[in-house]
């Protein structure tokens, strides 16, 4: 009984919105009112758990309310490709998967698991997203992946108090950033906290510097390994990074201490009870740790500045994101396509944006939908970067090179942090590892 009442309420509500909407939206809204997917079901798999899962479910619920399709969510944990692979073999494939790495989208597409997205989804993507995001969803000139959620990995977080105490200013260039770090260090607080125990923050450091210094074209070549890591641009970027790492006193605990600092710890060292550093570099998700685990006010106790440009370059914007793909093995093809088309709309992005912890690459999304100013700024810098956004390079590489604890790029950059004296050798070691991984 209750359910019928609820359903009626939803239908009534929709009719009312449909009537209230008016204008150009009228026709689609009227269609929505019909609940064209009533009776169909849709299964979506993604890596999200916890709060992210809850918030994504809000998006699913909004889709249900709009189309009448019944939706369910599967969390795959970290290893999407293994889980999805076994589900396909088991005849129990989800209809839509939210894939967090470019490399995995390519892997799925080349295995023939993916259905190219519908012309409607393509048109919507072309209208709402920068071309670079479409390109990252395209494999062998077929459009498979729609980037729904994005992250901005070009944000340096700082404690305004630490900078004020040191009389330092927010830097505009990489060199100024080192000056700022020196000033903060002079005040008795090391300038940076570097999460060296986890390997991936080091790859992100490198990627920002490389993107700014060598430019997007070289970045793409290197990401696809069409250019060797021994290229002078790589050596130069490593030297630039090494110039910071070599100044032991700028880093909390020195290089040795950095290698014993994992990612949450590095954030805590800046924004925890007893600050041990003034700045920490990582993506927009740092704000979640600051407000969630450390109970500080983002925007007040913690601010960020965009990763500054290295001399001769422009400010880099390295991003990441989750792409929605439709599996051929899924049983509900129609609902899957409609769902992905829905994800391309600013409407869908707004649902999660209002819930927080989300950035959308959708240019049509009104940034007023985000919950706080800091998120608005990170979202704005991501969208404003337009075509120059580049996807996290290590996420584009084979996992053996770009995504494995204790080996590949992670390990080599950790060794570089331990001893930054020879960028040339490091580049050589990187190339050897890359050759092996890209071959396999």
């Amino acid at each position, binding site marked *: 009984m209750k359910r019928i009442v609820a359903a009626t309420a939803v239908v009534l509500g929709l009719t009312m919105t449909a009537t209230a909407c008016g204008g150009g939206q009228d026709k689609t809204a009227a269609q929505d009112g019909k609940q064209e997917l009533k009776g169909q079901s849709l299964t979506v798999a993604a890596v999200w758990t916890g709060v992210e899962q809850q918030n994504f479910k809000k998006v699913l619920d909004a889709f249900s309310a709009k189309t009448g399709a019944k939706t369910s969510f599967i969390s795959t944990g970290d290893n999407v490709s293994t889980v999805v692979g076994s589900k396909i073999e088991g005849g129990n494939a989800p209809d839509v998967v939210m894939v967090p790495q470019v490399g995995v989208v390519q892997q799925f597409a080349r295995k023939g698991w993916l259905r190219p997205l519908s012309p409607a989804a393509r048109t919507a993507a072309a209208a709402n997203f920068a071309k670079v995001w479409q390109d990252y969803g395209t494999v062998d000139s077929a459009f498979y992946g729609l980037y729904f959620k994005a992250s901005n990995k070009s944000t340096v977080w700082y404690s305004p108090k630490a900078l004020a*105490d040191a009389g330092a200013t927010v830097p505009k260039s990489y060199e100024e950033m080192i000056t700022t770090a020196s000033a903060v*260090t*002079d005040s*008795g607080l090391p300038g940076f906290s570097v999460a060296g125990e986890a390997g991936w923050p080091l790859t992100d450091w490198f990627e920002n510097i490389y993107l700014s210094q060598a430019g997007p074209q070289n970045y793409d070549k290197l990401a696809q390994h069409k250019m060797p890591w021994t290229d002078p641009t790589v050596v130069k970027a490593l030297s630039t990074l090494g110039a910071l790492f070599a100044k032991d006193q700028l880093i909390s605990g020195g290089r040795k201490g950095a290698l014993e600092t994992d990612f949450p710890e590095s954030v805590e060292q800046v924004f925890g009870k007893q600050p041990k550093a003034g700045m920490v570099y990582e993506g927009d998700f740092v704000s979640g740790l600051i407000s969630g685990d450390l109970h500080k006010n983002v925007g007040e106790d913690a601010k960020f500045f965009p990763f500054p440009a290295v001399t001769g370059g422009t400010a880099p914007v390295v991003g990441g994101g989750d792409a929605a793909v439709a599996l051929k093995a899924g049983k509900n093809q129609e609902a899957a396509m409609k769902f992905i088309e829905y994800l391309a709309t600013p409407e869908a992005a707004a649902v999660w944006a209002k819930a927080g912890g989300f950035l959308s690459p959708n240019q049509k999304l009104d940034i007023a939908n985000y919950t706080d100013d800091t998120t608005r700024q990170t979202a704005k810098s991501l969208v404003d970067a337009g075509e120059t956004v580049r996807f996290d390079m290590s996420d584009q590489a084979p*996992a*053996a090179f770009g995504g*494995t*604890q204790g080996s590949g790029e992670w*390990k080599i950059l950790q060794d570089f942090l331990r001893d930054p004296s020879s960028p040339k050798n490091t580049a050589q070691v990187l190339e050897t590892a890359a050759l092996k991984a890209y071959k396999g």
Partner: protein
Amino acid sequence: MSVMNHRSRPGGAARGARTARQRSVRRRKINAVVFALPALLLLGALVGYPIVFAVVRSLFDASGEHFAGLDNYTEMFGDPATLKAIRNTAIWIAVAPALLTGLGLMLAVLTEKIRWATAFKVLIFMPMAISFLAAGITFRLVYEQDPQRGVLNAVAVGAHDAFTDASPYPGARTRGSQVLEAQKGGGYRTARPVRPGDSLTLGLVGLKPTALPATAAQAKTASAAAGAVTGTVFLDFVPGGGGRPDAVDARERGLPQMTVELVRDQQVVGHAATGPDGTFRFDAVPDGSYTVRLPAANFAEPYGGVSWLGPALITPAIIGAYLWIWTGFAMVLIGAGLSSLPREVLEAARIDGAGEWQIFRRITVPLLGPVMTVVFVTLLINVMKVFDLVYIIAPGPVQQDANVLALQMWLVSFGGGNNQGLGSAIGVVLLLLVVPVMVLNIRRFRRSQT
């Protein structure tokens, strides 16, 4: 029925009896096979098939589609990571089982002699009840570098600080100034020669204003005096910025209790300590050229403890955790052997005037030989497949320094390498390593049965 038939045949009773025996033997064989079949099937499916499959898989490439011959094996022995894993596994094999057996023997003999032996044994055996995962996480914390978290380093730092005084200004340094330069072995000295009548301003930075002693007062420029070397050591940093480098500004405080040395021709000719405003003074200095030094003792970083999880100590540290878990096992088994030793022999030895040490060496240990072999061999096999502790305790940057074969096999196959061909090859090598030990074990079993 059939027996009757045989008997009626020509050829006699002897032949009949023989066929009957053959038949009964055959029937027994069939019975044996029938009874053993479920076990054989299970073994075949769970042990035999995987071994064969792994051997075959190791001859194929990562995708499993192309025959690769022995490529995986050559790649394996050319890969530094695998070589490191082999080296570490060798260390484990050489150290852990012997150490554990010895430790178990020692504890077993000792617990024989103490009251509360059972309680003690339970305590030592307790870690066996904890999963490797939980034990690994616990030891990861125990070995943590930060003395606030790692209990071992808390002890190390506590013990160290009880005997050595902490330096007053750890981490203080110059701002790359013209006046002071770093000297070898730590500390700072004046860059230019100093003469009597000079007054120096020695600015340091890199200290938190809150880390200064309470006595620290506004720094003062020391007034120059004839025949004296004077100066100020101060924190050359104004909160909020804006100070001039190498000059005493308002709101810059002195660094009291700093040791200052006056040096002439490599010889220390004078000591002084700074006052609350940071000033120091060497009086009645003969004419000449001097250097003023701030010795390293002022700036020594506090002792940070031992870096257990660093590349050098990681394998011993993990072996330590392994000992903690398995000592109970060795002790209980050897203890059981000990309690079943014939008492008469020991008593006879005592009556003959043998000392305790002699009894231990000449009687207890030889008699315990078989039990100790069991413990040793079991641990040997166990050590070869150690995986979880290494995976959990070793932090990312040193994982390769702690790597062992079993972990490398997993890493290569599933943990990012996604090359199950190479992984199978490592598995086969691991199998080949275990086989001799197994053969030894089976032989010993047979011997003990006869």
